[in-house]
């Protein structure tokens, strides 16, 4: 048990280096290309964003950080703008999220979370802290899986790209009325009763739609 614990607690960039040795040859080639010729790459496929985060953590690479900025900053701002705050406030919050990404990059572990999920949590918490002035404690969702997911074969960052496609597909397959309640929750920061008021539905209907939507998404996403 102890040895497994040690394995999982290895700093992620070491894990990533280890992972890269085990990657498919095309992935390895791309990883090498990124290290050697990184400056020439303009479009960054999503599965490499985790590698860029590792470079930010390990090498404090501002070049890698700029690529993360190019990908995430416009999306973070867009996401925050849906919460009905001013353009200026959204940009200030985006700045804070990206600065946090820089300083906490060493805490991101691609074995435990997707980069987009990790950045989403930072953005959510910043929004609640700064706009709603509330405290929002976090749950360490990964502390129970450290013994069951110690197998390194499950750790490739390639999985992150596949999961992303599965979530996109699962969301697109939801009926409109189910997708709407999920989107109002995440995009508009609406509570169940606010959604009920907004859609002119009974509270119980909103709750059951969210429950059904979430169960369908979980079923589609399977056992990852």
């Amino acid at each position, binding site marked *: 048990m102890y040895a497994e614990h040690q394995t999982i607690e290895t700093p992620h960039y070491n894990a990533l280096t280890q992972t890269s040795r085990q990657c498919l040859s095309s992935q390895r080639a791309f990883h090498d290309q990124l290290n050697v010729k990184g400056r020439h790459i303009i479009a960054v496929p999503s599965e490499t964003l985790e590698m860029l985060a590792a470079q930010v953590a390990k090498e404090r690479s501002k070049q890698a950080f700029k690529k993360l900025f190019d990908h995430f900053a416009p999306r973070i701002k867009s996401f925050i703008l849906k919460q009905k705050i001013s353009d200026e406030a959204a*940009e200030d919050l985006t700045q804070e999220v990206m600065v946090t990404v820089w300083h906490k990059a060493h805490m991101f572990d691609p074995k435990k979370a997707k980069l987009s999920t990790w950045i989403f949590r930072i953005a959510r918490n910043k929004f609640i802290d700064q706009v709603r002035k509330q405290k929002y404690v976090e749950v360490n969702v990964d502390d129970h899986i450290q013994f069951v997911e110690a197998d390194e074969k499950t750790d490739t960052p390639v999985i992150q790209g596949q999961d992303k496609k599965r979530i996109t597909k699962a969301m697109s397959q939801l009926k409109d009325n189910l997708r709407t309640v999920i989107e109002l929750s995440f995009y508009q920061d609406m509570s169940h009763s606010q959604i009920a008021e907004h859609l002119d539905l009974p509270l119980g209907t909103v709750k059951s739609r969210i429950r059904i939507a979430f169960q369908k998404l979980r079923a589609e996403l399977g056992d990852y």
Partner: protein
Amino acid sequence: MKQEQLIPDEWIVAYAAGTLTEAKATLVATHISFHPELKEKLKTAEDIGGELLDSSEKASVSNTLFDKIEAALDRPYSSEKQVSSRPLTLEHIMPTKAAPAPLVDYVRLTGHQPKWRVMGPGLRQAKLCKGENGERLWLLKAKGGTEMPKHDHNGQEMTLVLQGSYHVGETRFCVGDLEIAADHIKDHQPMIDEGEDCICLVVTEAPIKLKSMLARVAQPFIGI
């Protein structure tokens, strides 16, 4: 454990989306921290948030944003969480059992050390936060064998068992179990099981209506 003693999925989605009040978010996070099954669900719900962020259309960001961020990277970084420098713990609240991590985090975030105060025969309470519309987050300690005062509800009451156990009718609530007592429930009378003190984390949305004259007289002073 019966399903109804775990929080329904729509609450997990609401927590992940960041739409819960401070009191409910703290209770829900603490509840989730007891159950691997709920942590898995939360992981999926936060992945959905990550995907919605990542698939947001790109907003235009000002040309100077990256420069502003880059300039901020080298400045000393302080976490957004104003963690108290005082060593706040819950050891005096729960001396025989480790308090759940989200609750300990919450107390550190607030910077206020909760204290037990007499609430009635065999009953102690420690207030944690007062929210909008009369919502309160508090800890309840009841001696083994105590009959809680019979009461009606004006709003929802959520009770999470941290230590000991109690029962309502034939339903028993043990450590990690959550009871959600609906609005307008009549004659709610939890009975604390014999044995160790029962400690619960409670969210009440509105003052409860106590049934006995003595309890009603005492209510303004004990603040439930």
